[in-house]
Every structure is written in C-alpha cells, then in structure tokens.
C-alpha cells in the first residue's frame, strides 16, 4: 500500500494508520508535522499552504518508491494539507509500516526530509503583527519580502 495525497481538509491520522496496518507488521512509524506558533522569534498567527498539486503528488509518490528501495518498506502513506492552517493544526502526516521498527522509523524520516527538499509546496506565513512572508528555506537572512 502506497499513497500520497495533497488534501484541503483536516488530516485523519487514524485513517492513515488503518491504511498501512497489517498483522505481518510489528511497527508503524508516524510522523506528524504541525503549525508552530513562532518562527525566527516572530509570533505566527497562521500559515497559508499552497502547492502545484499534480506535481506534488507525483513527486511524493517518487519519494515513496525511493523509500521502498532504500528501506524495503512497501506500506507508506502520506498526506499534506494545503489552505489556511492555524497554529497546532496538522500540516503533514506520514505512516510507514514494516515488520520491524528500524526500517519504519528510517523511512518516515527520509520521507519528511525529501518532502521538504523537493516537493512543490509553499508556505505563506502570517504574523500576529499583521505582516506576512513567503518562507524560503534556501535564504539565510530573515528580511521580510
């Protein structure tokens, strides 16, 4: 079971776990990414996520295929939410299941790192002082756009 989706509704973690669980597996590793209420010392009121949906889903599936080759994990699902999210809300969830814990945990870690590196998803961060900024992890300074 492999699945990768961009969704515009709240993520149901139990549903993702249910999609990968099987009696032959002794481990399910779950990674959850949530919206933080501060960033670089600024108070965050919310994040607007957007994506190039067709490519993002294709790219996430490629990552899952690569994860299978690296870790032998065949049951992995990921959902990334887009739209306006408030602090504390889930933005991304990954569930990886395997016979033993090491591959499942390594796999979940690999998938989130690769999503951050190459899946076309963007964050427009809104701050409590009324300003906003496109998040650019490649930039070293923190000046507002």
């Amino acid at each position, binding site marked *: 079971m492999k699945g990768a989706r961009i969704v515009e509704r709240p993520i149901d973690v139990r549903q993702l776990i249910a999609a990968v669980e099987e009696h032959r597996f002794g481990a399910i590793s779950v990674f959850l990414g949530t919206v933080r209420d501060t960033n670089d010392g600024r108070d965050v009121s919310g994040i607007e996520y957007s994506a190039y949906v067709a490519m993002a889903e294709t790219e996430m599936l490629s990552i899952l295929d690569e994860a299978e080759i690296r870790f032998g994990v065949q049951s992995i699902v990921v959902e990334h939410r887009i739209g306006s999210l408030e602090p504390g809300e889930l933005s991304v969830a990954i569930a990886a299941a395997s016979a033993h814990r090491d591959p499942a945990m390594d796999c979940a870690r690999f998938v989130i790192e690769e999503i951050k590196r*190459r899946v076309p*998803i963007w964050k427009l961060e809104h701050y409590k002082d009324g300003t906003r900024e496109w998040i650019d992890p490649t930039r070293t300074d923190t000046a507002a756009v």
Partner: protein
Amino acid sequence: MSTVTVQLFASYAEAFGNSKLEVPLQDGGTVADLIKTIRSLPAGSRLPDSPRVAVNRKFAVTDQPLASSDEIALIPPVAGG
C-alpha cells in the same frame, strides 16, 4: 517561433501578478532560453538567476528543449512540512 504557457506559483505568481505567462520561444528553445526571456520581463528581476523549472511535472535541466505542448512551471523555493 512558438509560444509556451508557464505556470507560476506562490511568491512568483505574486511577483508577476498572474498564475500563468505566455512566453514566446524559438523552435528548439531550451529551459535556459525560457528563463532568459522571463527574466527580461518587468517583474523578471524578482526571480533568482536560475529558478527551478519543472517540465511535465519533473524538475528539468537548463539545456532541456521545450515544446509548446509541454506542461511548464517555475518552481519557487519549496517549503513543505
């Protein structure tokens, strides 16, 4: 000469005030040619020197030739998670 449609997202769509650009391109023109043309537009200076480009939903190299039927997108720095 043909025209290609380029999708823009996030900060790039904001910079150009549009989510799509129609860009003239010589026959056999490459990703590098496309970037050069887009950077010569009024808002083009707001792009980095070498923005990432996706062709048919895959990241493309700069010498990749383009066709008017290709699905082309400029990809701002990604920030998922």
